[in-house]
């Protein structure tokens, strides 16, 4: 529409091909590359927090092992599996878009949303448990098993709530994005020629899964000498 005098304005184009791209292939590559650029900043964003976590883990290994022992490994493990299943359904949703199946896109996107919500529900149950156990950092923090380690265990819990909270925030944003992509899939926007938004949605979702792949062993599974 910007090039009214230009001949190409008369050509038939795919409705979702933006005018500043040569073709759908270039548009697809640009959007996935742009998403990876964003994920690069996300890797370094979570990386900074992880780096701080590791500094204190190296400084206070006993406290870290004690604190991880407070976590419910069963909940964390089930959530890891739930998230991996959601990643599988997300990957299958992208594939459904690639092969042009609207119904399978909708089924798989909905399944991803259900598993993502299940993760948040289980996470919420854990948060509630920790809150009532007095494991939220602050004036009401109560953990007396090894008094000398208590301040360091509280520091671990700062990392626990901070890191899992940032991760959960990403999940909530992801769930919102999923609703939007589901609406577009329902509208039948996507097919073998154009499925960039589903692909980019997948990149985001899998990245959030990868963050949890690291958070699970870092926050739940630290081997050490346990008291009591």
């Amino acid at each position, binding site marked *: 529409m910007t090039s009214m005098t230009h001949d190409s304005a008369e050509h038939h184009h795919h409705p979702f091909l933006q005018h500043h791209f040569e073709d759908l292939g270039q548009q697809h*590559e640009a959007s996935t590359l742009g998403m990876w650029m964003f994920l*690069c900043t996300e890797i370094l964003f979570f990386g900074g927090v992880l*780096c701080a976590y590791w500094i204190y883990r190296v400084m206070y290994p006993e406290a870290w092992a004690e604190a991880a022992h407070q976590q419910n*490994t069963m909940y964390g493990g089930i959530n890891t*599996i739930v998230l991996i299943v959601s990643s599988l359904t997300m990957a299958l949703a992208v594939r459904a878009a690639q092969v042009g199946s609207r119904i399978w896109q909708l089924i798989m996107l909905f399944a991803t949303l259900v598993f993502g919500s299940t993760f948040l529900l289980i996470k919420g149950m854990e948060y509630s448990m920790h809150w009532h156990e007095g494991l939220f950092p602050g004036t009401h923090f109560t953990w007396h098993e090894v008094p000398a380690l208590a301040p360091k265990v509280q520091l671990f819990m700062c990392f626990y709530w901070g890191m899992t909270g940032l991760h959960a925030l990403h999940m909530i944003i992801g769930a919102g994005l999923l609703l939007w992509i589901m609406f577009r899939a329902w509208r039948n926007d996507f097919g073998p020629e154009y499925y960039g938004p589903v692909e980019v949605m997948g990149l985001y979702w*899998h990245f959030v899964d990868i963050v949890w792949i690291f958070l699970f062993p870092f926050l739940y599974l630290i081997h050490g000498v346990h008291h009591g």
Partner: protein
Amino acid sequence: MADHEQHSLEHAPHHHVTPLPVYFGVFFALAVGTLLTWYASTIDLGIWNTPIALGIAGIKAVLVILFFMHVLHSTRLTWVVVIASFLWLGVLFVLTFADYLTRGWLMK
């Protein structure tokens, strides 16, 4: 050049469609990795507990990136961005730890 590419890109599905068994295989590997990392944490392996947990998480992440995130069949430019991301993460960790892990040396 542009005309030639445009033609091939617009009229043929040029994207790699990963076969279903690959997706299920990767999922299976991720599930096994999760069980393995849990099991490894329950046994005393001395100094090896942490490297093993990190190693399993790293392998799981690489599987997700290569197959679920389609980097295996992405352009070279995508590879550069992905590898650069982790290179910068490495710089962040190495330089920070070069400071913190060596501070004790001065006390001696």
